[in-house]
């Protein structure tokens, strides 16, 4: 079976040569580039045999992680034409396991996989300085190629089935957003590094982190062993094996699903697809959360306001740079600023609905459910952001004692900002651009009530964060124990203000719902 699939794959590849001369030229060029990369990179790998083991390991982990990431992202972004789509085999009644395995083997026979296989084999030479790393390097090469082939195979099928519809845009929107959010602080942090002085050290730290993720683990364990770290090497080997096992089961399940799922048509017709509504609970607040999320991703007005998130930190960076504040202290700035603005984004959320808010009023939705539901997108972005961002910030700051302070202050800004916004958006909505209009087309605000709502919510959030911020300063400049005080006070204030904001905003919504509809109708 597997042999037949392989032959099919080869036949398909060869047939590509027959199609048109231009295609042939393209393929030859691709192969030439591939060969050139292989020669260049494998020469480098062989040469690294004599290099400093730590630098070698770090380079391999960084490059290897990038390669694994490429195997995931390229099929998703460029939507590779899936010649061996599992759905093409649905009428043959093949056992799922056989088909999954066969398709995986064919994925190994492709230009990128072959290039990778040669390079991985070259890395065995790199680590052939002593027996154990050499053996591990063989394992690493095999697992690495397998991992990439699996990932590419799954990504291709995702791209060919799930992403062929209009929903693709939504999914890619989420991915893009996540990437921007993840990359922005990282780039800011990278700009703060003095590359000439400690470039290698920073790369080493990044490689260390990557080596504990599925992206880098597979490339790191021969190097770890060469450096004498037998225990980490074994753990990373197990991590890799577990990742591959997991992906293998996921691939099998995916093939099984594709075999019974009909091909989606371009219209995006999907009887079961309610998007976020299917993911969140079927309660009023769950539905409002799903609706908010859908709007945040589909409505350009929300997307534009999200742009402020990566930009905001730079506004604070420039004056601080001019003031001569050290780089590592600047690393503490982005996350709190982003959290501050993220919570604040909700402060006019109700006005974005325009008159559509009648549905909430006529349905008798409780104000509390409305408030909670609207918080969801901000918390969905904000909480992981604090988790990842605080770690990154402190990594570049360099003193792990400051981590609790970072989490405390950021949480306080995000949560109390969202709490204030929950009240303000119900009580003091101000006109904004209408649904479907250009997001940049802001209406004139009579009496500048909008300005004061914007300004006061920003100011209020800062005032509420003063206690936690003060404790954080004490912690950073003196007694490190204050850092835990900052965490407790910050998280406590944030959660309390959020609860009060939901409660008070909910009451306002309940009592003033006709006035809210009236406000929306008059603008």
């Amino acid at each position, binding site marked *: 079976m597997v042999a037949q699939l392989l032959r099919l794959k080869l036949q398909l590849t060869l047939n590509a040569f027959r199609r048109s001369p231009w295609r042939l030229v393209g393929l030859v060029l691709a192969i030439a580039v591939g060969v050139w990369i292989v020669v260049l990179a494998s020469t480098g790998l062989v040469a690294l045999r004599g290099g400093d083991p730590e630098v070698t390991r770090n380079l391999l982990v960084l490059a290897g992680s990038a390669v694994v990431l490429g195997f995931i992202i390229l099929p998703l972004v460029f939507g590779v034409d899936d010649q061996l789509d599992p759905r093409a085999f649905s009428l043959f009644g093949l056992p799922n396991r056989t088909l999954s395995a066969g398709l995986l083997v064919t994925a190994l026979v492709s230009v990128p996989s072959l290039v990778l296989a040669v390079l991985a084999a070259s890395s065995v030479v790199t680590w052939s300085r002593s027996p154990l790393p050499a053996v591990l390097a063989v394992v690493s090469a095999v697992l690495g190629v397998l991992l990439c082939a699996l990932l590419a195979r799954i990504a291709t099928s995702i791209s060919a089935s799930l992403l062929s519809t209009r929903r693709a845009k939504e999914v890619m929107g989420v991915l893009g957003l996540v990437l921007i959010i993840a990359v922005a602080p990282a780039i800011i942090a990278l700009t703060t590094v003095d590359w000439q002085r400690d470039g290698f050290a920073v790369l080493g730290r990044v490689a260390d982190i990557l080596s504990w993720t599925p992206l880098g683990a597979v490339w790191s364990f021969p190097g770890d062993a060469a450096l004498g770290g037998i225990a980490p090497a074994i753990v990373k080997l197990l991590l890799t094996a577990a990742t591959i096992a997991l992906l293998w089961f996921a691939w099998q399940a995916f093939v099984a699903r594709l075999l019974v799922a009909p091909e989606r048509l371009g219209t995006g017709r999907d009887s079961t697809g309610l998007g976020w509504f299917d993911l969140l609970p079927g309660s009023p607040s769950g539905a409002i959360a799903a609706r908010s999320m859908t709007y945040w991703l589909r409505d350009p007005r929300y997307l534009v306001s999200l742009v402020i998130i990566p930009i905001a930190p730079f506004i604070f960076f420039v004056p601080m740079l001019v003031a001569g504040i050290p780089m590592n202290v600047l690393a503490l700035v982005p996350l709190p600023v982003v959290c501050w603005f993220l919570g604040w984004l909700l402060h006019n959320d109700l006005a974005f609905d325009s008159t559509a808010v009648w549905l909430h009023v006529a349905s008798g939705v409780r104000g509390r459910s409305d408030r909670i539901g609207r918080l969801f997108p901000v918390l969905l972005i904000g909480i992981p952001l604090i988790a990842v961002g605080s770690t990154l910030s402190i990594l570049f700051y360099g003193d792990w004692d400051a981590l609790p302070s970072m989490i405390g202050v950021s949480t306080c800004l995000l949560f109390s900002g969202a709490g204030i916004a929950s009240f303000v958006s119900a009580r003091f909505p101000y006109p904004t651009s209408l649904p*479907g209009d250009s997001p940049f087309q802001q209406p004139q605000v009579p009496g500048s009530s909008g300005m004061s709502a914007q300004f006061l919510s920003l100011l209020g959030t800062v005032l509420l964060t003063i206690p936690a911020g003060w404790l954080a300063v004490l912690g950073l400049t003196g007694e490190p124990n204050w850092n835990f005080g900052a965490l407790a006070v910050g998280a406590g204030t944030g959660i309390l203000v959020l609860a009060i904001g939901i409660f008070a905003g909910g009451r306002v919504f309940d009592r003033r719902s006709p006035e809210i509809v009236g406000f929306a109708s008059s603008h």
Partner: protein
Amino acid sequence: MAPPQEEVVAPAAAPKRPVGRPAATPPSAAPSSPAATTEQRTEAADDGAHPVVLSISGLVKQFGDTVAVDGVDLEVRRGSFYGIVGPNGAGKTTTLSMVTGLLRPDAGSITVQGVDVWQDPAEAKRAIGVLPDRLRLFDRLTGSQLLYYSGVLRGLDPATVKSRTADLARAFGLDDALGRLVSDYSAGMTKKIALAAALIHSPRLLILDEPFESVDPVSAANVIEILQRYVANGGTVVLSSHGMDFIQRVCDHVAIIVQGKVLAAGSVDEVRGTGTLEERFVELAGGRKSAEGMEWLHSFSD
């Protein structure tokens, strides 16, 4: 002009509906207690088998110096197909907005199933399905998302909503459109999806503001049939429209509102008397202006 008698259809629904005329008594005498409801029922006693579902008394709404609704009294009994007609700006939409809890009245009371809409809005709203006019929908949702959203906000569980969505889509001819964004719908389709959303929680009372504006005749006929079956099974429809012919054909009761006041209300036959509803309406609305002073229109410019 007058349609033949057999066209005054209310199939399955009994042709003689209880008379829902405006309470002749002063509005203050119609508080919202069940006792009062019984009283009113006996007052209109010719066939008082059906309880009052919607009772409006002494309703007033003022915008600045303009009185939009000026002491409206109405009583709608269960199983009625009640039409509200009136010229532009007569206060129809304002009245219906106050009934559905979207606009706070300056004075007067509204009870739905004996529950005061402005004392206990949460309870009252449960019984009402709403199709407002000129208000937006959450149109960045797909049709099925919008129906799901409307149902779940009403407290239905997801499984029920999904099965009802399928039924509604079939009945309204929206099957092919459910996966598309509502903002891409035509005006008529938007009306239909909004109407479907108003029905999804099977309310006792449907308040429909201009439900058939820009809906094609075939869809309108389908929807009317759905509404007539709903009424025959004990539901109540209150709708506003400009289409006299339509109201005369479809509704069993009608109220004529002009300048915020109810000028006539009762069964369609009572209100129209010997003429057509349109003739009666024009007579009451007093809107016929003589065409004098428009002579320039007849002296063609070329």
